[in-house]
């Protein structure tokens, strides 16, 4: 452990330290506001630390065997931190309504962030496993946190069983790969090893485990139920932090094995399976989203489709386009996270009490009641749908570019068909916003008129970011080329 290593790990260390300090803080004084501000302070200082880091992939620091800190990992961690700051801001409002003091909630939140940090920096199956479990088990606690909700037991049990099954699949895959290669690091290139049937089975099982967590098509059944059953801030956490972390580690692992697929003659099979997963997710996600009445369920299906689109970046074969693939994936993920955070912010602010279940109809006529919130929703929805002048469009453009380069015509066809179907349900939400309302919810109107200055600023900043990065995507793309 040299000083450089410690310095490059600083953001993760801050979070890890924060978890311990929060426990001490709880022992000293139990206060909702204190722990909230402490969590925000920890997350913000980790954010500042990772922003100060040198963005340079050539200076990737290998921290022991387990972790490798590089520019891509840092960027992904910054996304994770921004999303979790949004989550803690949202939770503050949700937790205020209850009488109990909920300080464990924030400790669990920090543990999730720590797990995500370890995952995005990992370079070893052991580190991946540790981060994965830290993330999953803390998330199970968070999903079932709202004990009064009638769905809490069901959604957290479903999430527990499915994530435990997924991690067993992933572990069996790792065991098989290890049994054939003898190394647990991601990048193993050893010509003497026979990459036989067990190696391929291992790779397949590993992919199944990751696909469960990313909710790719044949493994997506848990997603809508868990999204709907968990509290809104936790759903945001599931949709942003866990997805970003899992996708980044999948890319890291995949690209380090890429040289291997070229060597092994049967490597084409794994590309075929990946393509199949991508096409299935795009079509299934978009088609099932059509009939949803609940905003959270709709977003769950749309996230399945978005992860399907993202899989395109894994289809490249030429090693020289790996950096382009990273740029596209990180751009797309930033667009996805920004849009998701915006929508969930709006959802949480309109759900002022527990009676509202987050049906789309509750947003009916929202434009006439709160222009700012409606504008935020419109910008986010257009970005998810991929309309020009939004970030989502640029992200899809990147993906199409990559797909053409890799000559994956089936994937391009599925992407276009999927986006076409997607427009239908995305635009329905916007349509609902402009309808005149039938049943006026007096309490909601009162709450929307009394929104605090703080919430107004957040809404404004999110809307501004969505528009600005859509009109000037170069500002983010330039940063990504520097990584």
């Amino acid at each position, binding site marked *: 452990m040299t000083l450089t290593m410690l310095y490059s790990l600083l953001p993760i260390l801050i979070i890890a330290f924060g978890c311990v300090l929060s426990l001490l803080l709880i022992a000293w004084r139990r206060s909702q506001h204190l722990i909230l501000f402490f969590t925000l302070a920890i997350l913000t200082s980790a954010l500042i630390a990772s922003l100060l880091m040198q963005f340079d992939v050539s200076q990737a620091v290998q921290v022991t065997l387990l972790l490798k800190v590089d520019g891509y990992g840092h960027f992904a961690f910054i996304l994770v931190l921004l999303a979790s700051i949004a989550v803690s801001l949202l939770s503050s409002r949700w937790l205020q309504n209850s009488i109990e003091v909920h300080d464990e909630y924030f400790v669990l939140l920090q543990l999730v962030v720590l797990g995500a940090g370890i995952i995005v920096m990992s370079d070893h199956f*052991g580190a991946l*496993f*540790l981060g994965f*479990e830290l993330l999953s*088990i803390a998330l*199970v*606690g968070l999903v*079932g946190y709202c*004990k009064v909700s*009638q*769905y809490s*037991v*069901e*959604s*957290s*049990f*479903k999430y*527990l*069983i499915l994530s*435990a*099954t997924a*991690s*067993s699949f992933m*572990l*069996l895959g*790792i*065991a*098989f790969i*290890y*049994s054939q290669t*003898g190394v*647990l690091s991601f990048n193993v290139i050893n010509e003497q090893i026979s990459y036989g049937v*067990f190696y391929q089975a291992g790779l397949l099982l590993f992919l199944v485990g990751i696909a469960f967590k990313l909710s790719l098509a044949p493994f997506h059944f848990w997603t*809508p*139920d868990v999204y*709907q*059953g968990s509290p809104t801030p936790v759903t945001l956490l599931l949709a942003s932090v866990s997805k970003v972390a899992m996708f980044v580690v999948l890319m890291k692992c995949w690209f380090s094995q890429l040289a291997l697929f070229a060597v092994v003659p049967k490597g084409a099979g794994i590309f075929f399976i990946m393509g199949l997963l991508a096409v299935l997710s795009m079509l299934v996600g978009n088609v099932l989203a059509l009939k*949803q*009445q*609940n905003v959270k*369920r709709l977003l769950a299906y749309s996230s399945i489709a978005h992860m399907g689109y993202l899989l395109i970046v894994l289809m490249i074969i030429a090693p020289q386009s790996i950096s382009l693939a990273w740029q596209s994936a990180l751009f797309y993920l930033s667009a996805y996270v920004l849009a998701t955070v915006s929508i969930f912010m709006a959802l949480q602010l309109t759900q002022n009490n527990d009676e509202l279940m987050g049906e789309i109809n509750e947003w009916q006529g929202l434009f006439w009641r709160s222009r700012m919130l409606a504008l935020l929703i419109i910008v986010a929805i257009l970005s998810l749908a991929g309309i020009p002048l939004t970030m989502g469009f640029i992200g899809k453009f990147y993906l199409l570019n990559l797909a053409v380069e890799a000559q994956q015509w089936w994937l391009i066809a599925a992407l276009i068909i999927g986006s076409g179907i997607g427009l239908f349900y995305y635009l329905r939400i916007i349509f609902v916003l402009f309808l005149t309302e039938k049943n006026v919810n007096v309490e909601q109107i009162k709450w929307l008129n009394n929104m605090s200055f703080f919430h107004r600023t957040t809404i404004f900043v999110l809307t501004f970011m969505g528009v600005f990065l859509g009109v000037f995507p170069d500002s983010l793309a330039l940063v990504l080329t520097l990584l």
Partner: protein
Amino acid sequence: MSVIPLEHILILASILFVIGFVGVIVRKNTLYILMSLEVMLNAVGVAFIGAGSVWQQADGQVMFILILTLAAAEVAVGLALLLQMQTRFKSLDIDLLSKLKG
């Protein structure tokens, strides 16, 4: 004493894993589902230990210890949920948990 080939260990681990997985899918009682999850994790442990001993490395055993820790943590959370389920539904039938639809 003859050496056990690696393939046999991996096949044994796969069979145990499949038994556990079938248990998770078929069982209706949530307690048995948690137990089947343990079987799956321990099957993975067998594979890791076998692979580690073939390569003469400690890595396999280290991973096994990590898996044991995971299994304990998972069961702790699982049993907490189980207790909550028992107090709420007075039953451990998994089919009671199917309210979310859409």
